[in-house]
């Protein structure tokens, strides 16, 4: 592949009052907001990250005839239709099937020590008599409180294996994912989803418990009927030559970026381990236990030493959701740029569905906090995303400008904005904010 050019300042004319370009990423051309929460129809569903090539189209969240999004429809079902007693019975039966009393681990619980993994591991151990081995895929850059919560988790009574990926490899992939997909979080997500099944195979454990199904947040409604996570997310029949990491073909990563197949295997789906994983079952605990993020926060505080972030995360009002990785700041900011949906929108929508806040408050929160620039860690993050030649001799050569500055970052972000969502009016503004503009 060619050397990656530096991003040029965007042609702002394309973002004027009248615009002509079609929506990027195959997004719906007209913007619609759910009538119950505050999410828009631009919200992308999850991708299979190791097949994620640049420029590909996105499937987005579905709305029903009444204008209610899939996530809200499912939230309603959680409240009214699902028989949680029965689901708990199913969980008990599942645990009974896999429980080991010979001293070995009987399930893997992946997580970071955040509220969700705390809840999952604690309840499985204490209420369902399981012997979990928790596994953690390290964040890019720990926040202080994230590290403390991770330690707190272990000290609340859990065994843990921490996998920290090769720092240099991680940085190259993060830079590439940012540069080509505007998706700085991709390397984290790859490991977060891929590590647990591999660890299960390595340790001869046949059961993995993830937390909530992503479908609760808007992936296709039908996905919610499954207790079991589809193997397509963590195993593959395809050869690695067809796979992409950071938006770059694996073969190119090896030949041009100085990375080896061994360097990349933590990010790739399991191939070699597949044999050992013949009996592996990957379940969503959220299928069996009614998931309530705020409830998990309270649980983690009451049963452990969980502390929320001492400061509000940029772009939102919340302090207990996803707080252990500094790269998170960029993740939500870039999502906001690509899809017009900021972090406050995600947090507020979730809280509306849980009954914590009403839509009116959600809107006020979105208006106040969405798309806020992540000032607090930006210097450190720019350094992290830079690939100086002395540390990255091969990768640096593949960039016209391997060092990232805030200006570079802003130009890059702007190049991913879609004119059907954003207009330039002495600053970036949404064409269709949730409270319609007066002009």
């Amino acid at each position: 592949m060619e050397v990656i050019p530096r991003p040029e300042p965007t042609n702002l004319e394309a973002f004027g009052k009248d615009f002509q370009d079609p929506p990027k990423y195959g997004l719906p051309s007209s913007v619609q907001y759910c009538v119950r929460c505050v999410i828009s129809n631009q919200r992308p569903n999850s991708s299979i990250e190791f097949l994620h090539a640049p420029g590909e189209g996105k499937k987005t969240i579905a709305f029903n005839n009444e204008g209610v999004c899939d996530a809200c429809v499912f939230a309603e079902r959680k409240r009214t239709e699902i028989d949680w007693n029965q689901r708990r019975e199913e969980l008990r039966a599942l645990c009974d099937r896999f429980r080991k009393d010979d001293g070995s681990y009987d399930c893997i619980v992946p997580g970071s020590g955040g509220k969700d993994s705390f809840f999952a591991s604690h309840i499985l151990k204490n209420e369902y008599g399981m012997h979990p081995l928790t596994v953690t895929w390290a964040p890019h850059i720990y926040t202080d409180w994230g590290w403390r919560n991770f330690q707190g988790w272990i000290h609340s009574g859990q065994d843990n294996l921490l996998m920290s990926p090769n720092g240099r490899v991680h940085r190259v992939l993060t830079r590439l994912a940012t540069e080509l997909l505007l998706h700085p979080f991709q390397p984290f997500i790859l490991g977060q989803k891929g590590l647990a099944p591999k660890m299960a195979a390595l340790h001869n454990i046949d059961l993995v418990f993830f937390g909530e199904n992503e479908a609760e947040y808007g992936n296709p409604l039908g996905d919610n009927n499954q207790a079991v996570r589809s193997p397509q997310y963590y195993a593959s029949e395809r050869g690695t030559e067809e796979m992409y990491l950071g938006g770059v073909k694996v073969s190119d990563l090896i030949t041009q970026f100085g990375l080896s197949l061994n360097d990349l295997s933590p990010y790739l789906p399991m191939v070699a381990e597949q044999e050992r994983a013949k009996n592996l079952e990957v379940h969503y605990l959220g299928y069996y236990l009614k998931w309530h993020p705020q409830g998990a926060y309270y649980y983690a505080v009451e049963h452990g030493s969980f502390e929320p972030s001492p400061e509000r995360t940029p772009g939102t009002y919340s302090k207990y959701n996803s707080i252990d990785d500094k790269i998170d700041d960029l993740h939500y900011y870039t999502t906001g740029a690509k899809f017009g949906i900021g972090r406050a929108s995600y947090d507020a929508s979730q809280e509306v569905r849980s009954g914590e806040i009403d839509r009116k408050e959600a809107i006020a929160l979105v208006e106040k906090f969405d798309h806020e620039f992540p000032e607090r860690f930006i210097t450190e993050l720019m350094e992290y995303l830079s690939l100086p030649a002395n540390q990255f001799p091969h990768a640096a050569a593949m960039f016209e400008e391997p060092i990232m500055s805030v200006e570079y970052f802003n130009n890059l972000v702007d190049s991913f904005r879609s004119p059907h969502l954003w207009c330039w009016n002495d600053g970036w503004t949404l064409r269709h904010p949730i409270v319609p503009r007066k002009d």
Partner: protein
Amino acid sequence: MDLAPSNRPEERLSSQRPEPRVIARLDLKGPNLIKGVQMEGLRIIGDPALYARKYYSQGVDEILFIDTVASLYGRQHMSEILEETVRETYVPVTVGGGISSVEDVRLLLRAGADKVAINTAAVRNPKLITGIAESFGSQCVVGSIQAKKIGDEKWEVLIEGGRERTGLDVLQWAEDLLELGVGEILVTSVDRDGTGAGFDKSLAQKVRQIVDVPLIVSGGCSGPGDVLELCLHDDLVDGIAVGYGLHYEKFTVGDLSSQIEECSKPERVEPL
């Protein structure tokens, strides 16, 4: 006449100063009473006026209403709840949350409030405190501080419902508030809020050394034991504001005030 009982026996001897007060703290959002942990994850508890009446009947000394979304919406919501509460409870009511002008205060006092608690607006516009004190008297202004621990005996002032940092030192800010004319100081430990992990005693001690107005502490009360902790020091606090423990019925107002009374007996008291 069917009147609410007083919680203090008349046989008690009069003393040289008021006893520490038990203040029920009710955080409000719209029409709801809510409660969070470390000011996060706000959970709906129920009808505020109902809870206010309940605490009144348990003998509470004062009621404190804090509107947690006022600064988000940029306006006051409190009047209806105030009016309903005042109709049936004959104890002082303090209101806070998003109060940012002298006119806001005037309307709240007319609606039944006795004191106003000012937090965010004081940081953004310190002269507001002076303005309110001049119009309505110092005794009506409570300087409300949300304190987040940032080091050994060091706390930072947070505003906007504990969401924004200010870089201000709590002890310095308490002194400033005093100078601006507050009649009372309310210090809430953000770290202890909603945890039942006990009051932040060293925070109380440090603030006490600086302020010569009544000091109310809030955040972390898990019951009479914590009250005992504080009251063992003579003259440390003038009141405690309690939310979590009361709303989740871990203890009653009576449990706390009995403990305070115990502490007020002369033999118990140690010098600060």
